[in-house]
């Protein structure tokens, strides 16, 4: 799941001027104070301070796989404002600004810590000490007080709905009783369709925001559009002119970010702005009212994210997710096209001032000392784990939660550093006021299965399993299917994490983790595959699959990659849960999770054979070879630098017929009791209407369970809205029972998260029908809005 851009030139950002309000000067002097205070802070044991408190949770990588038969050890960590002790000046900074600290319940952390955690602790303090010496502390600081956030309701102000990313709408105009009457209110077409050059490469995956009376969205090639929320009429558009060769794995823009500058004057340009990350790795900000680029942001509205990354290779480093916005800082990672080479762009995570576009901080896990831009001629550490999905901001705690992937060579880890093994496939919490990790939680050790965390985490006040009250927590879904509930201040799991034995074998048995964590709260994962699960249309192709099954290496989940024989990876790299994420109804106490139930059939290719086959990484390919349909991710990926390339048969498809070897259902949707993790209902999602052998639609309306990508929205009215499956339907389910109450046929694939909003008294459901090359659904450029029919003479009444 991966010609320098036309517009972008330099990466220099304008020097900060003093043209803003006095708070800025205060911030500046406070930052200076902070810089001066760092050496004394480093002398401490590192368990607190403005540099952030690391709390390593779960053993780092393969380094100490056997050390904890139980679960992840954790050291409670918090970020600066809560640190009661110490003469750190970061509290001084926050004290000057006003006390955010009182708001946050400071969980205190003992200075002593478990061995695993102290390993990361040591890293941090070493970093701090040399910080001031090595590079200048960034001139920009996050606001230390939580900013007022727009909430979900009439609006849908964030990609995940509210600031908590619950994908929940408090609207209840549409209910079980009337949802059957939903009709199309309007439709809009962005006009961004593939050309001959980009045929087979589109996967828009877009979700629109709604703020005020407007909708804001981005198209597959990053064209920004604003629509009237009631009529769907286009208000403005802005085309950043992204070159087609910037497409990595697919042309995707999952959404945009809406930012209101609290210090802007009324009517000032870009007081409210729309920000997106582009395929050619720029951060672009335009005025929300006019679509004009924001002059004061970066260079005429654009910040070049290639800065510090290294050689510009279009299509290798792209942003496909909306940046998170926390305390006035935009946080973004990027998608590094999978499987190309060890020497690939860095997975560095960076925070930028949302007003000026200046770099506030950088988190390079391979080089924790580097907190700003790298020195001339150097880059951030290449090939490290990246974050391609959407992060979640925690405005109150000042943290941002980053679901990380694994290193650039996915299926062989012999070249990874200890830091990579520590952080790969982990959820990392970064303190946006400092740019330092606060804690991290690893879900796969020594990940050689491309099990990167693809789901955005959801924030929730979770009923404390130990007693009364609630705990500020987050829900972390994963591709292996495990769903974790973590305390989001400390990273500690609220339910025990069990260790399961991992099979050992393959090409690097000595490196593999002996055990892997699994969540006792809930997993979407099903039982391991058996020969009986093989499928087909006739006994003949079923026999073919059974022969493949017998011949392959398979010992359940985490079967190690092998070169001598193919191996079965189940769940495959599409989950479990993927970028669609989960939705939660906090009032009914239900999590809704749609998931894939599909194996991949893989094999490592030794380097000599890969060379014979001509597998070359993206920076060595001739440009002509880029045109034409993009292969599925992993199919013949070179993994240059590693002794093996990789071939992934995604979905384990039989050649010639295209039928998957595993029997249906290949995807499902499930309701989970929030407090206990028990399954409430579970059923396949997706009908067979579009699928059949040789790609011929069977028109069978029967629910079969298809692969799905995209998530759901749940509403107070008791409805689950979801498209996602490969049958091109948008549907409404009863959240209590899963019963399908309504559906409609979309003109293209519905692989996107819906939006629910209210305008002029009417509740709308908005879904992109954009299609998806990997999911093999028809491509389109529609956004389609549904609503209950207007009552005559009463339009506009709430």
């Amino acid at each position: 799941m991966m010609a320098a851009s036309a517009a972008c030139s330099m990466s220099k950002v304008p020097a900060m001027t003093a043209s803003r309000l006095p708070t800025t000067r205060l911030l500046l002097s406070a930052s200076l104070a902070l810089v001066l205070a760092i050496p004394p802070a480093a002398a401490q044991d590192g368990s607190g301070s403005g540099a952030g408190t690391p709390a390593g949770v779960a053993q780092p990588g393969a380094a100490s796989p056997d050390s904890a038969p139980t679960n992840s050890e954790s050291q409670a960590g918090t970020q600066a404002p809560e640190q009661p002790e110490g003469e750190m000046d970061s509290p001084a900074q926050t004290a000057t600004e006003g006390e955010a600290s009182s708001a946050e319940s400071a969980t205190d952390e003992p200075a002593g810590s478990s061995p695993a955690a102290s390993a990361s602790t040591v890293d941090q303090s070493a970093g701090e000490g040399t910080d001031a010496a090595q590079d200048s502390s960034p001139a920009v600081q996050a606001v230390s007080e939580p900013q007022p956030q727009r909430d979900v309701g009439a609006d849908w102000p964030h990609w995940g709905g509210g600031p908590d990313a619950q994908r929940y709408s408090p609207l209840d105009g549409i209910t079980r009783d009337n949802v059957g009457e939903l009709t199309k209110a309007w439709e809009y077409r962005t006009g961004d369709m593939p050309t001959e050059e980009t045929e087979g490469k589109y996967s828009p995956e877009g979700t629109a925001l709604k703020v005020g009376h407007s909708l804001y969205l981005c198209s597959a090639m990053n064209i920004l559009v604003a629509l009237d929320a009631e009529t769907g009429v286009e208000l403005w558009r802005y085309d950043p002119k992204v070159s087609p060769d910037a497409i990595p794995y697919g042309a995707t823009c999952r959404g945009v970010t809406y930012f209101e500058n609290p210090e802007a004057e009324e009517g000032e340009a870009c007081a409210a702005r729309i920000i997106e990350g582009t395929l050619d790795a720029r951060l672009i900000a335009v005025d929300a009212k006019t679509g004009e680029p924001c002059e004061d942001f970066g260079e005429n509205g654009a910040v070049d994210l290639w800065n510090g990354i290294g050689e510009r290779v279009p299509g290798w480093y792209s942003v496909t997710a909306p940046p998170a916005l926390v305390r006035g800082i935009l946080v973004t990672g990027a998608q590094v096209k999978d499987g190309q080479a060890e020497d690939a762009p860095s997975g560095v995570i960076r925070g930028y001032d949302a007003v000026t576009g200046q770099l506030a901080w950088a988190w390079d896990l391979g080089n924790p000392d580097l907190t700003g831009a790298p020195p001339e001629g150097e880059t951030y550490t290449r090939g490290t784990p990246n974050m391609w999905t959407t992060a979640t901001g925690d405005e109150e705690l000042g943290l941002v939660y980053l679901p990380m992937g694994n290193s650039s060579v996915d299926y062989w880890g012999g070249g990874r550093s200890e830091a990579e093994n520590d952080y790969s496939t982990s959820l990392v919490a970064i303190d946006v006021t400092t740019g330092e990790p606060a804690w991290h939680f690893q879900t796969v050790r020594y990940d050689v299965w491309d099990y990167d965390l693809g789901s955005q985490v959801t924030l929730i006040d979770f009923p404390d399993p130990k007693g009364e009250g609630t705990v500020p927590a987050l829900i972390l879904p994963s591709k292996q299917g495990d769903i974790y509930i973590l305390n989001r201040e400390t990273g500690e799991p609220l339910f025990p994490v069990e260790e399961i034995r991992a099979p050992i074998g393959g090409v690097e048995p000595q490196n593999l983790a002996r055990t892997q964590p699994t969540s006792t709260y809930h997993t979407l994962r099903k039982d391991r595959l058996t020969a009986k699960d093989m499928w087909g249309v006739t006994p003949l192709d079923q026999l073919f699959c059974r022969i493949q099954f017998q011949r392959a290496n398979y010992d359940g989940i985490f079967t190690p990659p092998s070169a001598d024989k193919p191996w079965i990876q189940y769940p495959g790299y599409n989950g479990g849960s993927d970028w669609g994420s989960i939705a939660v109804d906090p009032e009914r106490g239900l999590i809704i999770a749609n998931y894939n139930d599909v194996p991949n059939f893989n094999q490592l290719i030794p380097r000599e054979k890969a060379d014979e086959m001509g597998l070359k990484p993206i920076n060595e390919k001739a440009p002509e070879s880029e045109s034409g349909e993009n292969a599925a991710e992993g199919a013949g990926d070179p993994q240059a630098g590693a002794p093996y390339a990789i071939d992934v048969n995604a979905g384990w498809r039989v050649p010639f017929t295209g039928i998957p070897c595993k029997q249906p259902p290949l995807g499902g949707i499930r309701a989970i009791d929030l407090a206990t993790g028990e399954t409430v209902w579970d059923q396949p999602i997706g009908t067979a209407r579009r699928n059949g052998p040789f790609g011929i639609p069977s028109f069978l309306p029967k629910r079969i369970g298809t692969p799905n990508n995209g998530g759901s929205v749940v509403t107070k009215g008791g409805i689950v809205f979801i498209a996602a499956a490969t049958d091109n339907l948008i549907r409404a389910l009863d959240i209590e029972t899963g019963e399908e109450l309504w559906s409609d046929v979309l003109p293209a694939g519905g692989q996107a998260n819906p939006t629910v909003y209210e305008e002029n008294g009417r509740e709308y459901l908005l879904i992109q029908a954009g299609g998806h090359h990997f999911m093999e659904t028809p491509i389109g450029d529609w956004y389609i809005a549904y609503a209950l029919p207007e009552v005559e003479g009463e339009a506009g009444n709430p």
Partner: protein
Amino acid sequence: MSETRSVGTPRDGAFFWTMLVALLALAFGLPILGGGVYLIWLGGSWYYAIAGFGLVATAIALFAQSMSAFWLYLLTYIGTVIWAFWEVGFDWWAQVPRLVAPTVLFIFILTTLPALARSGR
């Protein structure tokens, strides 16, 4: 006399239809038998080799316009149904590869019955 074929079998539509069904049975039967033997060698299910054998035998009997084709295939088909339910029970999607094509073939063979009956063999 030692003819291997009844005198006077008309080479009409029914005859050629039977040949076609025979070819179909052979086209499925040979690879299922061959692959099925390989599967046994790999440690997998015995069903396919046995069913493939039944299909090939049916095909041969059909080529010979013999009524035994019906009985051979009936045996194969019943065995298939028992095996299919033993493997996956009432999971209808899982039953598609196990039962649909064999049932279709059964119907085809039923349509050859008139030709098989008149051949007297």
